């Protein structure tokens, strides 16, 4: 018997022309693409690849998840943190269908990921063979590209194409289905990186006339506001963003997925826009004279009622995906390009400027929000602990330097509003799809990506139970993830809507929960602490951060806390409610 722990000799890649199997070709192709980590789960139709992987496990760190959905989310998180393509490996049939949620999540949040699934032998395709499913058909709407490999010869070329497509332009997930006979087949090894595809136009060149028009609008604007989306992080344009806004003195609001692209404590950071964003960026969207949107797609959770969104403003939209231009919001100047490229060309044309009063007006609005909403939540005097106090305290204790991962729901909004991000690529969350269960596997992926940084995984009691089995992954791989479970015994966000819009009819949102800390500690040997009193909070947070290995901190929080302020669904961004 050979085990995973035994070290391999660090096998080298074979010479060109060496005859190898399709499975080996897949492993070597991954190494050629500089992959170093695979999130996966073995099964019948992918066994030849797993067998080939066994000899290269020191070069390709395989993280064994407990459910394929977890593999996808972990890979997404890994990709987001490192700005590098995540790799997933699963078997056919249920292995592949379990990936679908993760692919959809990666698709809508533009995450580079290549997922491989095993498939029945090509002679059995279409015969309802054991664990056969139409993976290509199923995953088509939720992938940027997908392909079924039926012969070993195709493997190197298709893998190269997959990585190229996943990582370039607007990134996204690529699914590659490989039949078992292709895995067993023999080929002569040859690898060439993909550098272009004739029908694919990933990086439109910046049109300078558009940049000049944009610069003109920026230079004459009295009340500009910049929305930074995930595109800033994807193109690694944080510095260009900083240079532009400090030069022209433009307030910056970062979308949920754009969080950490601009330091939260910077004087020009005016918070987050959208449904549970801050008052100032929402209200000022309808007061500004110029809205500069970069690497974002005007999601409905950001715009609220579209016909009352920034009508008074000129709009500059910088976005790499031309199909986002004019999809939801019509812009005056659209620059279809990579954010870094566009910003670095824009910068020299933008004049130094000063919008002191305008920037100050955001601060005034923030003060109002602070007094009305933020302070009462962070400094609650009531019997119950509020989510905001926990997040605020942990933000302070980690000095805004941790990698923060969330699940979906109330706690997600509270974390986004209260964590003081100081470093880029420090926030991982499920934005567009709102995937409950994302948090725990994503925390796994983040820790694997950056073992050197503190990884905080926030979750609510609902989402935590959707992928709770990944505690097994954390335990087996000894990943020192710090899990903070904000337990209100409710599906809190749904309950909040029931409270506000459905006459407090709490239809199936109350949860009878297990003893989470017992599951963690007694079941998985993960250190944990349960607290329900405010006076125990700080000590428990210290204990969590001082513990070397993984830790679950479960905080019993107020059962019926609502997240405010809020732009109710279908309302204008001008009309935020605070209660």
């Amino acid at each position, binding site marked *: 018997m050979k085990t995973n722990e035994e070290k391999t000799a660090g096998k080298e890649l074979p010479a060109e022309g060496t005859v190898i199997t399709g499975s080996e070709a897949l492993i070597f192709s991954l190494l050629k693409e500089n992959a170093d980590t695979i999130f996966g789960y073995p099964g019948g139709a992918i066994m030849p690849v797993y067998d080939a992987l066994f000899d290269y496990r020191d070069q390709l760190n395989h993280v064994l998840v407990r459910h394929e959905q977890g593999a996808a989310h972990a890979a997404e998180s890994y990709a987001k943190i490192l700005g590098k393509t995540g790799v997933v490996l699963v078997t056919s049939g249920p292995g592949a269908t379990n990936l679908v949620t993760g692919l959809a999540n990666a698709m809508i949040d533009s995450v580079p990921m290549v997922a491989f699934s095993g498939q029945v032998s090509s002679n059995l395709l279409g015969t309802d063979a054991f664990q056969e499913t139409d993976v290509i058909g199923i995953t*088509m*709407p939720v992938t*940027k590209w*997908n392909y079924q490999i039926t012969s070993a010869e195709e493997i190197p070329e298709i893998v190269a194409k997959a990585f190229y497509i996943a990582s370039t332009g607007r990134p996204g997930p690529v699914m590659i289905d490989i039949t078992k006979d292709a895995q067993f087949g023999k080929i002569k090894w040859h690898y060439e990186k993909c550098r272009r595809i004739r*029908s694919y136009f990933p*990086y439109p*060149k910046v049109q300078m006339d558009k940049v000049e028009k944009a610069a003109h609008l920026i230079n004459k604007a009295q009340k500009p506001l910049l929305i930074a989306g995930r595109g800033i992080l994807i*193109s690694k344009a944080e510095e260009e963003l900083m240079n532009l806004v400090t030069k022209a003195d433009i307030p910056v609001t970062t979308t949920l997925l754009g969080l950490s692209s601009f330091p939260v404590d910077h004087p020009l950071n005016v918070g987050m826009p959208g449904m549970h964003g801050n008052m100032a960026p929402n209200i000022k969207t309808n007061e500004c004279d110029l809205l500069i949107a970069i690497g974002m797609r005007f999601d409905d959770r950001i715009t609220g009622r579209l016909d009352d969104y920034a009508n008074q403003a000129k709009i500059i939209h910088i976005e790499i995906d*031309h199909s986002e231009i004019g999809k939801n919001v019509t812009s005056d100047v659209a620059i279809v390009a*990579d954010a870094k490229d566009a910003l670095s060309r824009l910068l020299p044309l933008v004049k130094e400027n000063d919008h002191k009063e305008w920037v100050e007006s955001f601060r005034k609005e923030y003060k109002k929000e602070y007094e009305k909403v933020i302070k009462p939540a962070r400094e609650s005097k009531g019997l119950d602990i509020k989510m905001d106090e926990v997040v605020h305290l942990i933000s302070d204790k980690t000095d805004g330097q941790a990698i923060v991962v969330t699940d979906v729901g109330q706690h997600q909004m509270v974390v986004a509003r209260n964590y003081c991000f100081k470093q880029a690529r420090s926030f991982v969350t499920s934005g567009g799809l709102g995937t409950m269960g994302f948090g725990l596997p994503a925390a796994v992926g983040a820790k694997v990506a950056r073992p050197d940084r503190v990884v905080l995984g926030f979750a609510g009691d609902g989402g935590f139970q959707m992928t709770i089995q990944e505690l097994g992954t954390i335990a087996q791989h000894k990943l020192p993830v710090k899990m903070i479970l904000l337990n209100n015994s409710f599906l809190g966000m749904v309950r909040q809507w029931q409270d506000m819009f459905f006459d407090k009819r709490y239809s199936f949102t109350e949860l009878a929960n297990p003893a989470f800390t017992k599951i963690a500690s007694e079941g998985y040997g993960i250190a944990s602490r349960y607290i329900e009193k405010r006076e125990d909070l700080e000590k428990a947070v210290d204990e969590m951060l001082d513990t070397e290995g993984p830790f679950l901190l479960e905080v019993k929080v107020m059962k019926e806390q609502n997240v405010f302020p809020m732009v109710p669904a279908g309302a204008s961004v001008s009309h935020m409610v605070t209660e």
Partner: protein
Amino acid sequence: MEKIKEFTIKVYSENNIGLLNRLTIIFTRRKINIESLTTSEYHIPGVHSFTIVVNSTETMIRKIISQIQKLVDVMKAFYYHSDEIIYQEIALYKVPTSALLESNEIENLVRRYNARILEVTPEYTAIEKTGHKEDTQELLEKLKPFGLLEFVRSGRVAITKPMKELAVHLQELEEATNYTND
């Protein structure tokens, strides 16, 4: 409310398995019915062309074209109003030969509608007509009383009036693109 009109969409792509599916998903997502669809190899080797007819608003069509153009295997997508293209559909009709022989009415119809007889057997006669849907439909209505046995109409094929060639479009796209960002 913006007016719903008929649009002809032309898509030029790689001839890859599954692309048709990826194309139709874009329409089904927005609950738009495809009125007709024709696909064939283009005169440039390796390029495939799709002609798709849909009824929708121009705003919607513009967004759809953008999303089609975004597909990795699609080279270029265009949409046209009916007056910007020259288009045809082909219809085949099968009538009993006895009806043809009983009078000269069918023969007159064939002549009047610029149709042609493809095959005459003791049992049936096959007639072909090329034209716009209204024309082939009209002939269909006229042939029905004669005991029409079978009818089929193809999807639309269209060539465009604008003179700019696909190769020029592609070259422009290529020149406006960086393929890597390093």
